[in-house]
């Protein structure tokens, strides 16, 4: 017996790992013409891994205060060996993680993988996407540059629109009436402590559920063809991960993250301030909404509708009743297509109007 066998025997004896190992070794991945979508969750996962590693490295130099944040990031980028690369990778992998998570969500939606018994996998996935948005929103402020400062100012103002809880949330996020030194402390706290705890918990549950229940197959696929998860699919996963790592490195080297000017709280808001791309569709919705609608504040209606859309997304497994009976519904399909068209269209529209 080699050392590895000894170790396995040691662990088996004490922790009865047999069940888990059985799950992993016996898990299979269905083979059909939609199998390509099975890779996107794994790619999101590896990007989150990159985020954890690069984020931990950034912590070595980053200082969360209005006085030092900008300078510390500047120092990291100009003086620290490979500091520029770590920050660029963190910024790019963040965007790609959100993109992959969105594609993953859309594919799961259209392949109806949220059908019973996988409702909770879907719910944890949607909440994970919301958490990624939270990471993006809080992380954007941390370099304390002009763009980030004003985007956060506008972003937290939007939070204040929500009736009753809005102003409380706004004050809580800002740590005062305006974006300032305390805000940076709070966003840092959310970004490196609170959100990671939530992410780790939900991600573990999400992965555990997938391991326990195996991969879902769309209701209309009748074939039983499959491949073992380990090693066949896992090796393919590794290929996808290598590709995504290559993409992250390419964009990070060719278009390194920039820093811009240090935020000046007393400067007037620059024109054309926009949030990160994944918030653009919400931002543009708010901008084009009429001032008043049905006797309510237009902004309030827009925020309310966005909130309802989020809630509906969370409850998709229960709202899609035909899927619960293993049936496809053109209505659900149309709602999904329209939703994607709206988000993509609004994002494009916001990017198009920006220069004007």
């Amino acid at each position, binding site marked *: 017996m080699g050392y590895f066998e000894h170790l396995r025997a040691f662990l088996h004896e004490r922790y009865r790992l047999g069940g888990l190992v059985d799950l992993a070794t016996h898990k299979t991945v269905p083979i059909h013409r939609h199998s390509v979508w099975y890779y996107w969750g794994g790619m999101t996962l590896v990007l989150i891994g990159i985020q954890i590693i690069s984020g931990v490295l950034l912590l070595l130099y980053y200082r969360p205060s209005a006085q030092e944040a900008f300078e510390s990031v500047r120092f990291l980028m100009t003086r620290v060996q490979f500091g520029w690369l770590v920050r660029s990778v963190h910024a790019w992998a963040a965007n790609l993680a959100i993109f992959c998570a969105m594609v993953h969500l859309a594919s799961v939606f259209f392949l109806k993988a949220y059908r019973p018994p996988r409702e909770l996998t879907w719910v944890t996935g949607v909440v994970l996407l919301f958490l990624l948005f939270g990471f993006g929103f809080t992380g954007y402020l941390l370099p304390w540059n002009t763009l980030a400062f004003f985007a956060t100012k506008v972003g937290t103002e939007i939070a204040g629109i929500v009736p009753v809880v809005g102003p409380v949330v706004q004050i809580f996020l800002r740590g005062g009436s305006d974006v300032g030194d305390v805000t940076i402390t709070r966003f840092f706290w959310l970004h490196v402590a609170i959100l990671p705890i939530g992410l780790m918990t939900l991600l573990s549950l999400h992965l555990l559920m997938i391991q326990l229940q195996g991969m879902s197959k769309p209701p209309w696929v009748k074939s039983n063809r499959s491949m073992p998860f380990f090693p066949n699919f896992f*090796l*393919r996963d590794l290929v996808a991960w*290598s590709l995504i790592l*290559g993409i992250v*490195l390419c964009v990070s080297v060719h278009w390194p993250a920039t820093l811009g000017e240090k935020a000046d709280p007393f400067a007037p808001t620059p024109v054309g301030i926009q949030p990160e791309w994944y918030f653009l569709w919400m931002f543009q919705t708010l901008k084009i909404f009429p001032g008043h609608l049905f006797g309510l504040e237009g902004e309030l209606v827009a925020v309310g509708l966005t909130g309802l859309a989020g809630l509906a997304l969370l409850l998709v497994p229960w709202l899609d009743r035909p899927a619960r009976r293993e049936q496809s519904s053109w209505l659900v399909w149309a709602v999904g297509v329209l939703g994607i068209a709206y988000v993509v269209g609004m994002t494009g529209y916001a990017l198009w109007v920006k220069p004007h």
Partner: protein
Amino acid sequence: MTGYRLRVALGLLLCPGFVWSAEKPNSCVECHKQVEGQTRGPATLAAEDVHFQRGLSCVDCHGGDPTAMDPQAAMDPAKGFLGRPRREQIPQFCARCHADPATMRKYNPNLPTDQYAKYLTSQHGKRFSVGDADVPVCISCHEAHGIRSKKDPASPVYPTNIPGTCASCHSDASIMDKHGLPVNQHWDYSQSVHGQALLFRGDRAAPHCASCHGSHEAAKPRTVAIGNVCAQCHSLTRDLFAKSPHKAAHEALGLPECEVCHGNHLIRKPSDEMLGTGQDAVCVSCHEPGSTGYVTAQQMRSAIEQLKTHMASAEAAVRHAAELGMDVGDAEFELREAMTQLTQERTYVHSFSAATMEPIAEEGTHHALRAEGQARQAIREFHFRRQGLWVTLIILALVVSGLLLKIRDLERSDSTDKMDDTSPRDSS
């Protein structure tokens, strides 16, 4: 006369401000507002006048009785009515208060009281004393009514308005020809570095006519004083000049210091071409080829050109690095330091000694070389990053190829081993 009185009486009746005003009555303004013609003007300008703003009124200059409603009584010489002063009376008329510290202290303690005395020493004042009607008196520059503070941008003596105010006479050939004076000063000044700064950029720190010539004491800056006039702003240059060999030479030859090279009204932005022995160099107008001054001029110019060459090379490298998207903040800082040294070197030209300029040139070159070194380092770093990326991508490509081969291997053996197992399952 009856018609005039009737008009005034009618005006008074129709004037609610006068009848119902709770303030101290001022029949001068109320009546003059109603009349037509030249005497109406002063009344309409009263509100803008700095004297009115400080609580003075018509009576304080012109005398009379503003409480009397009858024009005869109001403008009664027995009540001290002086009327309109004649032109030759004006300087003294104003000086009654403006040359009296006790009076001025009551209204504006900051205002000097020597304007009249200075005026009498000026060329304007001297000509005035001998009865020259062309020279300006107080109201020529300050207006008679509606006199504004010199801090008021609408005042004719506000810094940016002064050149135009002086030019209203000094660019008028019909006046200047009589006195044998040129009329091109304003044009020259407006083309000069000073005029451009003041008139076109609105930089009120730039000198106007009065900055060099004085205002009330206006005079030609005489030969010996020119250096001091320029030194009001260019003090370091003046100090260097005073210690230079040029000082004694200019004094001995009676030359007007700064003006010899830079001119007076048409002072252009100085260029490096002014220095040395080239076509546009001013040095060669005095220094013969082969003389010590000639050689020094050459040395000083080459010191400046050397630094400029280093800086140009560094700038090109920094620009290249910036175009590649590299951070060049530190290199730009070094370049700014070099630029500071170049500016200082140009100032130290006025020491007229190559040895004095040498350490400055060295310091500037040091910063320029550092900037270039940092920029080149950034460019190398850029290429290193690109190469590093390629190496990484090749490694990743190898890993991917290995994985793909492994998958093919695995599945080929799978399909040969388990063909029988999987086929029936597929068909079921």
